[in-house]
């Protein structure tokens, strides 16, 4: 396919969509959460229902990616009204179709959040759960069929790629990304534009572009939802990134725990290749780029860039000291760009709408939006995307609907095993990179676990330490032995056998492991411990013996 053909296809798809606007589009959430609640059977039943009623011409049924409020699933959304029904199953789908499609009158007590809101919203966009959100990375998730490239094309898909290939030089692209001030969404928050520029500057006949989809934090499923809900968006981001830095070969490293994401991304690659959007001479230009999926094999440490590279090379996923950074010497010793899934999902909108537009969202130092996986003791668990700088209070009490049973909020855990806990007195903290670091936590990949008083913070620290201990690759001494030592000490304290000396040892070791470890896993492993020591020291004190 060449440029003109792409344009024609996009136009055709958009027209189709316009035509359909008069009809009903029924989106059935087929994110992993809703699938587990039975949305695939529901999809079948719905198709049957529509057929028996002879509504095929008026109704289009679309299996989509994640819509957000995962614990209310299976979710079904009716377009163009944007009405969402919750907990829909094969038994209650009939009246919903009858009411929504035939009678055009929603069934109020089945609407989203109808069991908890006195007056549920017919247009879900008015619900506080969605109202406070701003979806960029997740923009089309829940509206398009992730398994159809044409659905993506009808939503401005691959227009950014077209623009980049025909109207922008690699320098222009990097400039635009720098201008947007987007930072790596994998956790560390390194400016993406700068990263691209560094790789771009290294001269090498071979360069690689890797998409990091090894989302290993317990409690995080943002990347999964993006990959499952809109794989083409990530793929488009990869191709643009490759064009900008001059890479000809890419790998999408996706967790083996996400078979659906792997399947959909592989399908996306196939479709894109078929349409000439991927492979040799993309859209008839001189630029060629090919992508392969690499399946992670269950190692948290492989989220670390150098370990991920080792894993792509088919080896043990043990990190290497940096410098040299992957930008200089990465995959097979060649300059390599590694970006997180969520970062890549943000690239196409930046190109389409301009870096300026993106940079104005969020806070001065952290631009754009961030996807959080909201879980734990919260009424509306699920996937949300908010502008950087939204406060924790807004997220928990406005979007998340507060704590179940009106329990008091005790702490929020961000960043998983690399992050920390934010206590109640900082509920008004703005969620951006710097604020979270100043509280001893990190943004991380976006896991956000809400805890009430039933959570024991020493136990929470122990839980994460056990995770880091199990996931340590065992290469460097501080992480290998230090995490084990800290875990043993925490265990001792949890069993009320710890002493003052143990607490001192723990604090000393935590700082040592943080500073002396070889890679990011070790360096951040003490964070949950350090942050709970900082904000909940009394809970430790209460548990230690007074003697020695």
């Amino acid at each position, binding site marked *: 396919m060449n440029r003109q053909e792409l344009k024609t296809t996009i136009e055709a798809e958009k027209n189709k969509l316009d035509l359909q606007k008069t009809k009903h589009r029924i989106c059935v959430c087929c994110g*992993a*959460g809703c*699938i*587990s*609640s039975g949305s695939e059977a529901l999809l079948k039943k719905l198709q049957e229902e529509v057929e028996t009623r002879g509504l095929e011409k008026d109704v289009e049924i679309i299996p989509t990616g994640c819509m957000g*409020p*995962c*614990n209310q*699933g299976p979710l079904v959304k009716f377009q163009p009204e944007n009405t969402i029904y919750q907990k829909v199953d094969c038994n209650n789908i009939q009246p919903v179709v009858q009411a929504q499609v035939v009678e055009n009158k929603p069934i109020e007590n089945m609407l989203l959040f109808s069991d908890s809101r006195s007056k549920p919203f017919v247009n879900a966009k008015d619900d506080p759960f969605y109202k406070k959100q701003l979806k960029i990375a997740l923009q089309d998730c829940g509206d398009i069929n992730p398994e159809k490239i044409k659905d993506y094309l009808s939503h401005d898909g691959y227009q950014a790629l077209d623009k980049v290939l025909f109207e922008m030089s690699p320098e222009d692209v990097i400039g635009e990304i720098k201008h947007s001030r987007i930072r790596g969404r994998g956790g560390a928050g390194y400016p993406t534009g700068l990263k691209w520029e560094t790789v771009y500057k290294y001269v090498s006949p071979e360069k690689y572009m890797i998409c990091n989809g090894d*989302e*290993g*934090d*317990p*409690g*995080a*499923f943002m990347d*999964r939802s993006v990959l499952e809900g809109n794989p083409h968006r990530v793929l488009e981001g990869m191709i643009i990134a490759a064009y900008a830095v001059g890479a000809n070969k890419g790998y999408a490293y996706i*967790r*083996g*725990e*996400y078979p659906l994401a792997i399947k959909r991304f592989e399908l996306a690659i196939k479709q894109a290749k078929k349409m000439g959007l991927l492979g040799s001479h993309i859209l008839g230009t001189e630029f060629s780029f090919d992508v392969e999926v*690499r*399946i*992670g*094999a*269950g*190692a*948290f440490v492989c989220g670390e860039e150098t370990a991920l590279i080792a*894993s*792509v*090379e*088919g*080896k*043990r*996923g*043990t990190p290497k000291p940096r410098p040299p950074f992957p930008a200089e010497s990465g995959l097979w010793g060649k300059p390599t760009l590694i970006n997180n899934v969520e970062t890549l999902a943000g690239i196409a909108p930046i190109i389409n709408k301009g870096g300026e537009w993106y940079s104005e969202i969020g806070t001065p130092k952290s631009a754009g939006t961030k996807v959080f*996986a909201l*879980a*734990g*003791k919260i009424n509306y*668990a*699920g*996937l949300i995307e908010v502008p950087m700088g939204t406060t924790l209070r807004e997220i928990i009490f406005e979007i998340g609907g507060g704590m179940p049973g009106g329990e008091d909020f005790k702490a929020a*855990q961000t960043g*998983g095993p690399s992050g920390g806990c934010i206590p109640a007195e900082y509920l008004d903290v703005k969620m951006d990179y710097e604020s979270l670091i100043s509280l001893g936590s990190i943004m991380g990949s976006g*896991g956000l*676990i809400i*805890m009430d008083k039933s*959570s024991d913070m020493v136990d929470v620290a122990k*839980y994460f330490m056990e*995770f880091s201990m199990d*996931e340590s*690759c065992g290469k460097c001494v501080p992480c290998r032995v230090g995490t084990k030592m800290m875990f043993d000490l925490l265990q001792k304290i949890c069993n009320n056998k710890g002493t003052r000396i143990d607490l001192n040892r723990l604090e000393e070791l935590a700082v040592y492991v943080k500073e002396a470890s070889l890679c990011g896993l070790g360096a951040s492993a003490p964070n949950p411990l350090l942050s709970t020591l900082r904000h909940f020291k009394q809970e430790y004190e209460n548990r230690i013996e007074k003697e020695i």
Partner: protein
Amino acid sequence: MNAAPTVKDIEPVKADPRLKLIAAKIKKENFKPDSLIEVLHIAQNAYGYLPMNVLKYITKALHLPPARVYSTVSFYHFFSLKSKGDHTCLVCTGTACYVKGAQAILNEIEKTFSLRPGQVSTDNKLGVSVARCIGACGLAPVVVLDEEVQARASTTEIVEKINKMVAP
């Protein structure tokens, strides 16, 4: 240069369709040593674990030192060197599931079936394992019984379902 080993090089030579699957993958990957993990995935999926003779075959086919293959296999949680049992029960212990009581489920399973994570019953009927997060946090706590995800799992319900699953 040595000729690439064929399926026949493996002992016993019995034509196992799964071996052909692996051989095909190795061929597709052009016998490149760096395709080790990809090939292991195929083998793991086909067998549910990695039998030693299959491992030896892969080692030979990819021209890798045995120690490197074993070290890679033992590094990743996805790969298992032992059979995991006829029926499997996988409890997610990700943060959300943990907060919502995954441990209570594990305790109950241990009490009822005397199996701890990683263990397989003596008759090989049931294997219990844990996952660090299967990414369905909104449905916590989550248990996977024979590939089927059980959302918002209650302890009694899970025990009941396991009993049904392993019943002859």
